C-alpha cells in the first residue's frame, strides 16, 4: 500500500492555483451542451406534463395535475402496471446480462492470448451495426412461422405449430440482452482487470477451488464494475423503444412505447410528458435505492 502522503500528491487534480477558472473553462463546452440539450428540454417536458390536454391543439391554456392523477389512480392501475412491467423487464435484462457477461468479462480480463482481441471485437460487435438492422436479424431468427428456429423445429417434427419466441416479452428480452450486453461486459472487464491476479492465487494456496476463489475474491472486488454495468443496462433497457417495438410488436406495451403512442398517435403531449416523467422518476428512485444497497455491500472494497 502506498504511503497516504504520496497518494494524496498523486490524486491532486492538475489545477493551477494561479488560474482557478482554468478547469471550469475546460468543462464549459460540455456543460453548455448539457444545459441546452438536456436540462432545458427536461424542464420543458416537466412544464408540459402540468399543462391541460387539448384535442385540437398541443395543449390548452392553464395548468393541472390531472395528468399525474390519471396515471397514479387509474381504475385498473393500467399505467402503474405498465410501469412495473417496464422495471421488471429492466431487472430481468440486467440480471441475464450480468450472468452472461461476468464469465466473458473475467476471461477478457485474465486472458493473455492473442485470441482475446478477436473476442473483444465479438463483444463490441452489437455496437457496430445499427439497432434496427440487428432487430431485423433477430426477426429472421425468432419469427413465429418462417423464423429460423421455428422452421427448423417444425421440420424436425419437434413442434407442431411454433414456439412463441417473438411478439412477447421473451423476444424483447432476447433482443435487449444481445444489444446491451457490451455495456455490462466493458465495465466488468475493467473492474476485474484492476484486481491483482495474485489474490486468486492466494485464495487457491489457502485451499479454495478456482470457482470458490472467483466467488469469494473476484466477485466481491468487482462490485464497482458490476454496479456500473447493471445501472447502465437497466437505464438503457427501461428507456429503450426501437427493440421493444420491433421484437414485441403491439403485444408488448412498456413505458417508452406508451409514451410514443401518446405523443405521436394520440397527440396527447401533456399526458405523454407526464408518463415520461413518471418513468424517469421511477427509474431514478430504483437506481438510487440500488446504489444505497450496493454501496453498503462495497464498504470493504473501496480503496
Amino acid at each position, binding site marked *: *500500500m502506498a504511503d497516504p502522503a504520496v497518494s494524496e500528491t498523486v490524486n491532486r487534480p492538475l489545477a493551477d492555483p494561479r488560474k482557478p477558472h482554468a478547469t471550469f473553462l475546460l468543462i464549459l463546452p460540455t456543460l453548455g451542451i448539457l444545459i441546452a440539450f438536456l436540462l432545458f428540454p427536461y424542464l420543458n417536458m416537466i412544464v408540459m406534463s402540468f399543462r391541460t390536454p387539448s384535442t385540437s391543439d398541443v395543449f390548452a391554456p392553464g395548468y393541472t395535475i390531472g395528468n399525474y392523477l390519471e396515471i397514479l389512480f387509474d381504475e385498473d392501475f393500467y399505467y402503474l402496471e405498465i410501469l412495473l412491467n417496464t422495471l421488471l423487464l429492466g431487472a430481468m435484462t440486467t440480471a441475464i446480462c450480468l450472468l452472461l457477461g461476468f464469465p466473458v468479462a473475467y476471461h477478457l480480463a485474465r486472458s493473455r492470448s492473442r485470441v482475446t482481441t478477436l473476442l473483444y471485437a465479438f463483444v463490441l460487435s452489437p455496437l457496430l451495426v445499427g439497432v434496427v438492422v440487428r432487430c431485423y436479424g433477430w426477426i429472421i431468427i425468432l419469427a413465429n412461422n418462417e423464423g429460423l428456429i421455428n422452421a427448423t423445429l417444425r421440420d424436425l417434427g419437434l413442434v407442431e405449430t411454433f414456439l412463441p419466441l417473438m411478439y412477447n416479452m421473451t423476444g424483447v428480452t432476447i433482443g435487449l440482452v444481445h444489444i446491451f450486453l457490451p455495456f455490462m461486459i466493458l465495465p466488468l472487464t475493467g473492474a476485474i482487470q484492476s484486481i491483482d491476479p495474485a489474490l486468486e492465487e492466494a485464495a487457491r*494456496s489457502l485451499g479454495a477451488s478456482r470457482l470458490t476463489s472467483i466467488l*469469494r475474491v473476484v466477485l466481491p472486488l468487482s462490485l464497482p464494475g458490476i454496479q456500473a454495468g447493471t445501472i447502465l443496462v437497466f437505464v438503457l433497457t427501461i428507456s429503450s423503444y426501437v427493440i421493444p417495438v420491433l421484437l414485441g410488436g403491439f403485444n408488448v406495451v412498456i413505458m417508452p412505447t406508451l409514451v410514443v403512442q401518446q405523443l405521436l398517435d394520440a397527440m396527447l403531449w401533456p399526458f405523454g410528458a407526464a408518463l415520461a416523467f413518471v418513468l424517469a422518476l421511477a427509474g431514478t428512485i430504483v437506481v438510487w435505492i440500488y446504489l444505497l444497497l450496493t454501496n453498503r455491500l462495497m464498504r470493504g472494497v473501496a480503496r
Partner: protein
Amino acid sequence: MTRLAIEGLTKKFGDVVAVQTLDLAIDDHEFISLLGPSGCGKTTTLRCIAGFEQPSAGRITFDGTDIVDRLPEDRNIGMVFQNYALFPHMTVRENLGFGLEMRKTPAAERRSRIDRVLATVQLGGLGDRYPRQLSGGQQQRVALARAIVIEPAILLLDEPLANLDAKLREEMRFFIRTLQQEVGITTVYVTHDQGEAMVMSDRIVVMFDGAVHQIGAPTDIYDRPATRAVASFIGQSNFIAAEVRGRDGDGLYRLESGLGALTSRFSGSLEAGQKVELLLRPEAIELTGDGAGGNVNLVTAELRERYFLGNTLACRLKVADGSMLAAQAPPWLDLDVGQSIGCRFAPERTWLIPR
C-alpha cells in the same frame, strides 16, 4: 512437517527454458533460499512447488508423495506473495480465517488459532482492521500469519520483503527466521537479496539462467563459491587470473599470476598448468603499510582511492599488473591517496575458481 524433494525439474515457456533439470532435497524444518538475479528461474521454481505452474518435466514430492498433478488448493501450502495479496475486502481476522474456513475448521477452533497466530506476529489488537488501514510492515505480518495459520506442509515466500523500506526489511529478516524456527516449518524463500538469504537460510540455492550453480550453507556460498557467477553475485570480490604451478601440502596450491607467486587454499583437485581465478574478498586483504609480517601472498600496491564508510575504509588499490583491487581497511588506519603500501592476504582466506 515435511521433506520436500525436487527431481529433474524443468520448466519451459515456449522455447525459453526457465528452469533446467533442478534437483533439490529439502529437509524437514529446513529454511532454503532460492537466490539469484531476476529471471534466473527462482520464482518459476517456487510457482511449480506451489502448483501455479505445471513443470515441463520432473517430480516434486512432499514426504515421498508426488504432488505434480495436484491442484494448488490440494497441496497444503502456505504462500506469502511479494505484494502480500491480502484480500482487501476482508478484515485481518477474515483474511486469516479464509484458509481455515476452506478446511472446514470449526468456528471456535478457528477463533483460537487466529488469536494465537495474531499474537505470534504481534498484531493482537489489529484483527478487525482492513488491510489498507495497516502499514506495509503490518500487512507483511498479516500475510505471514495467513500463510502459517493453516499449518501448511510447506511455507513458500516469494520476495516478501521487496516492498518494505530498508530498515524494516532488516528487522523482518530476523523476525521471519525466528518465526520459522518457532513454528518449525519447512520453508522455501525466494529472493534476489543476498543479505536476506545469508541471514535466514540453512542452505542457499544460487541460480543463474535457470540452472543451479551451487547449493550450500551461507558460509560455503561465500567462502567457497563454485563458480565465478556465484562469487561475484554474493559479496564484493576481486578476481586474479593465475595458473596452477603445483600442490603445496594440505589443500594449498602454488600459483603464478600477474602479481607474482601466490598461494591459495582449494579443496578440489587441479592439474599443474591449469588456468584458474583466485577469489580475493576485500576484507581478506590486510593493508600492512610497512610490508612486515611474512611474505606469502604479499604484494605492493598503490592506494588510488579511499572512502570513509564509518565502520570501514573502502580502498581501491592499483597492483603490479595494472589491475585494481578493492580492499577494506580499519577506519582508524591513516592512509594517504597515492601512497605505496604492502598488502597481504592469508591463503586460507582465498579460494580458486577453475576457468
